[in-house]
């Protein structure tokens, strides 16, 4: 194993693929040290250039927030926020369901704070703007953080006794509140591409299907393949996965997302951003659900013994028993891609996302591309 993940995971990952049961949980707080007892080195290396994270060519607002450090919250009695993030279709919903088993947690929806965060550079980046300098700049930063705290606290009113209010927007990791915990969930990009494909078809989302000109025609064709028969969805998905532009686009998006998140985690570990971050692979959560959810409760400062058992809510057990193609909770299966990827799709995927696969320790090299999938060939 090499690269970003190695620096983040440290000694616990040993370059073993997740199927063999290697732990890929990595938890660390800039202030608390290694929560999970994992060590890591944060020195940047020449082979790992930092992804560009400039928004509209301006300083990301989390950098502005970081510059000001921690502003105290207005009220200590409100439920405190935490965040679950990850690429779409990576298990953010499942993770939130697991945390909701705890009576002191409410994590029910997607706030999409990045919408607000993306707007902020436009208020502080130009010299003619009042908030470009003090005293307004710190007032903007402080007020923005308070806005997030207040909004998140309002989500928790539906669960009396909730001490923690969570957001599970599938998005990039972007630290906004220095006192908050961030859970980052990664999932094998091949399963993500498969799940994204089915999801896009299920929602008949032309915004996603037509995002680039090369996929417009094939997506419309795939939509035309859908019938009332559940299996038609998989036929349409497999049809899309035989097209290079489709696979490359979703694979490339996944890699960019993963590398950016790994970079941010690294920066948080290095103390560049305040806050706690814990990342977990979907596959590890699948294999050791109880152990990992207890670690998540503990990171939130909660007693794991108070949580209800897995299965109390049917959508908390690994995988979904519904297996309805039309459901948001479709399958939840690890390695489902093997039934749907063709050899060309594997090559296209590897070309676009191979680096992230190595960084996340899903593969040790590109040799997997030469092995035929168990399903179709």
């Amino acid at each position, binding site marked *: 194993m090499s690269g970003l993940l190695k620096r983040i995971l440290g000694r616990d990952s040993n370059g073993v693929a997740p199927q063999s049961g290697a732990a890929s949980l990595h938890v660390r707080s800039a202030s608390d040290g290694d929560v999970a007892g994992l060590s890591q080195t944060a020195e940047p290396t020449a082979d790992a250039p930092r992804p560009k994270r400039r928004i509209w060519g301006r300083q990301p607002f989390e950098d502005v927030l970081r510059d000001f450090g921690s502003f105290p919250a207005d009220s200590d009695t409100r439920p405190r926020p935490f965040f679950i993030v990850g690429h779409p279709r990576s298990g953010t919903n499942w993770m939130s369901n697991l945390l909701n088993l705890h009576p002191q947690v409410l994590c029910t929806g997607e*706030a999409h704070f990045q919408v607000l965060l993306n707007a902020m550079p436009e208020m502080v980046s130009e010299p003619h*703007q009042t908030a470009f300098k003090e005293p*307004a700049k710190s*007032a903007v930063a402080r007020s923005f953080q308070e*806005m997030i705290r207040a909004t998140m606290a*309002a989500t928790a009113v539906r669960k009396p006794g909730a001490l923690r209010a969570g957001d599970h927007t599938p998005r990039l990791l972007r630290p906004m509140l220095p006192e908050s915990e961030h859970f980052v969930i990664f999932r094998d990009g091949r399963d993500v591409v498969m799940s994204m494909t089915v999801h896009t078809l299920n929602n008949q989302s032309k915004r996603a299907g037509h995002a680039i000109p090369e996929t417009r025609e094939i997506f419309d064709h795939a939509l035309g393949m859908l019938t009332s028969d559940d299996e038609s969805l998989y036929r349409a998905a497999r049809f899309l996965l035989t097209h290079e532009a489709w696979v490359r686009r979703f694979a490339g998006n996944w890699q960019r997302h993963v590398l950016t998140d790994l970079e941010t985690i690294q920066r948080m570990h290095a103390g560049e951003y305040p806050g706690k971050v814990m990342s977990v692979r979907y596959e590890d959560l699948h294999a050791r659900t109880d152990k990992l959810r207890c670690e998540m409760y503990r990171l939130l400062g909660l007693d794991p013994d108070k949580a209800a058992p897995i299965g109390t809510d049917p959508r908390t057990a690994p995988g979904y028993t519904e297996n309805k193609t039309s459901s948001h909770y479709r399958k939840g299966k690890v390695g489902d891609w093997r039934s749907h990827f063709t050899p060309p799709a594997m090559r296209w995927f590897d070309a676009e996302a191979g680096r992230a696969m190595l960084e996340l320790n899903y593969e040790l090299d590109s040799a997997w591309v030469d092995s035929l999938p168990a399903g179709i060939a």
Partner: protein
Amino acid sequence: MSPIKRILKRAIGDSGEDSGPTALVSADTATYFFISGHPRSGTNWLSALMNLHPKVYCHGEFHFQVLRGALDHFTALPWYLAHHDPVRSEAERAFADLVARCLRAQGQCKPGATVIGDHTPRAVRLLIPDAKYLVMVRDGRDVLVSWTYHLLRTGRPEVVHETVRAALAGALTGLDRNAPDSLRSAADGLLHDQAWVRHFAQQWSQHVSKDLATMVEWQQRGGPQSMCVTYERLHASTESERARLYSFLGVEPTEALTISAESRTAPGFGRDDPASFYRKGEVGDWSNHLCDARERWFVDVAAETMSRMGYLKHPSKVDTDHGATREAVKV
């Protein structure tokens, strides 16, 4: 600090960076107002006039409308948490609180000020429900001329729409932005460009129409309080207009300092300096730049809005009562 900035800060009672900020204005005593309008409509001048009052502080451009727009998106989609109450109303409350906190933080620069404002030249938007809103409107032809000079002086083609970006970039080529004659020549070239004139006529017309519609909607639903201020009327009757505005903001007009050229609160700047942010400040200056044919390009696009605002007459005969506007918006 430059001498002119010292004079301006002294004129508005701003303790500024020399003495450092004082205690934060109390949330219990502070009231808020916003000056908005199309860029180059006199929002700076209006804020300077308001700052002549010891209890009023209006400094700078926060551009809250950027976050306001993001908040609209944040609450728009059904699967977003803030689309539904109570999260939605709490997000709105928190946004208004953010705006108020920022204004109070800025307000500490002027001890004694309790009426705190922002003068971002943008479309009027609801920022704080119980705040007061001053909407500045200026003859679009004068705005066009002033905006053209401003864009040339600041030299940033990326800030204009792509349909006119190449024209501005071309005008900036070889331009000496410190040389008045070079600026005048470049401005004349742009004002000869039909696409340029029509584009900004459209932009101005849409901006003013939207502002008027917003004010009408607010009046119909009983708030927030807004007032339309025209540049021309403020120019012609500065004292009575500013007294009306102080009263609108809830402060005593007689407590305000006198207007002066030194504090840039007197109407017009008594000069023609294309290289300055404060270029001319003249009513009807457009007639020195737009011949009949070029003016027609503008009027073709913006006639309806100009008519509503009473601008279709020669500016020297502008109807300062703005009957058409008064009909739509009780100014």
